[in-house]
């Protein structure tokens, strides 16, 4: 059935994009956090 391709694509794109944004966010945070003293981080 052709439909299944469209359905799978919808879900893969949805979950994939969420995963990619989460990954990019964490990686960028890691890079930046090194350059900022812990004292200045309000969440610690």
């Amino acid at each position, binding site marked *: 059935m052709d439909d299944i391709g*469209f359905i799978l694509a*919808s879900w893969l*794109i949805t979950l994939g994009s969420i995963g990619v944004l989460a990954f990019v*966010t964490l990686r960028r*945070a890691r890079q930046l956090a090194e350059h900022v003293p812990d*004292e200045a981080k309000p969440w610690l």
Partner: protein
Amino acid sequence: MVSRSTGTTTTRVIGIAAIAVLAWVVVSAFFITPADFQQGESVRIMYAHVPAAWIAYLAFITTGITSGISLARRHRTLGFDRVAGASAEVGVLFMGLALITGSLWGRLTWGTFWQWDPRLTTTLFLFVTYVGYLAVRNIDGDPHRRAKRSAILALLAVLEIPLVHFSVVLWRSLHQEASVLNPDGDVRLDDMMLFTLFSGVVGFTLVFVWMVIHRQRLATLRDLQQGVGLDAAIAARRNEGAAIAGGGQ
């Protein structure tokens, strides 16, 4: 050793909960919910499409509210402005996903990927507005001026949301009217379908909260790294420490 993460116990709990709920939604969407009497299997796209659209609305409304607060506060700290920005970023992601999944779903049921129909057009316009908003936020300059500029834009942009949501009632549209969030209050959904849809909304909300917390902290780091408010932040922490130490004596 400098902490290298924007994660805390709270975000970890939210993150794990989000993964667990979304795993359930996928299982239910593919294996538990029935095919629709009219649309057949393609209805399974709904459990990603509808929550994505709703969370995009939620994100843009959050941006509007936090922008309003950031404008109204006399002593401007950048906290609310950063939440506004983070929320808009996540909103743009979800709105984009709603457009893509909607287009795929439309191909299966309507027989077309895209039409300039009221709902689709207003949604695309909303998406483009917030892409513009994010671009404006990223034009460098004094962070306080940036905050003010983007807050005004956000308060204007949020007005588009009712137009998008009610476009299917205001005008004739190829897009079906709302099955849940409709003015007459009827829910036109099979029970299991409704439960799965609801789970999807919970799962995406958790993702939204997790993402906004992390991206807001990321924005803080970005500002701090460029030296914005670094002294103030450290002084605030020192005072906090002093107050605790003083209170203990």
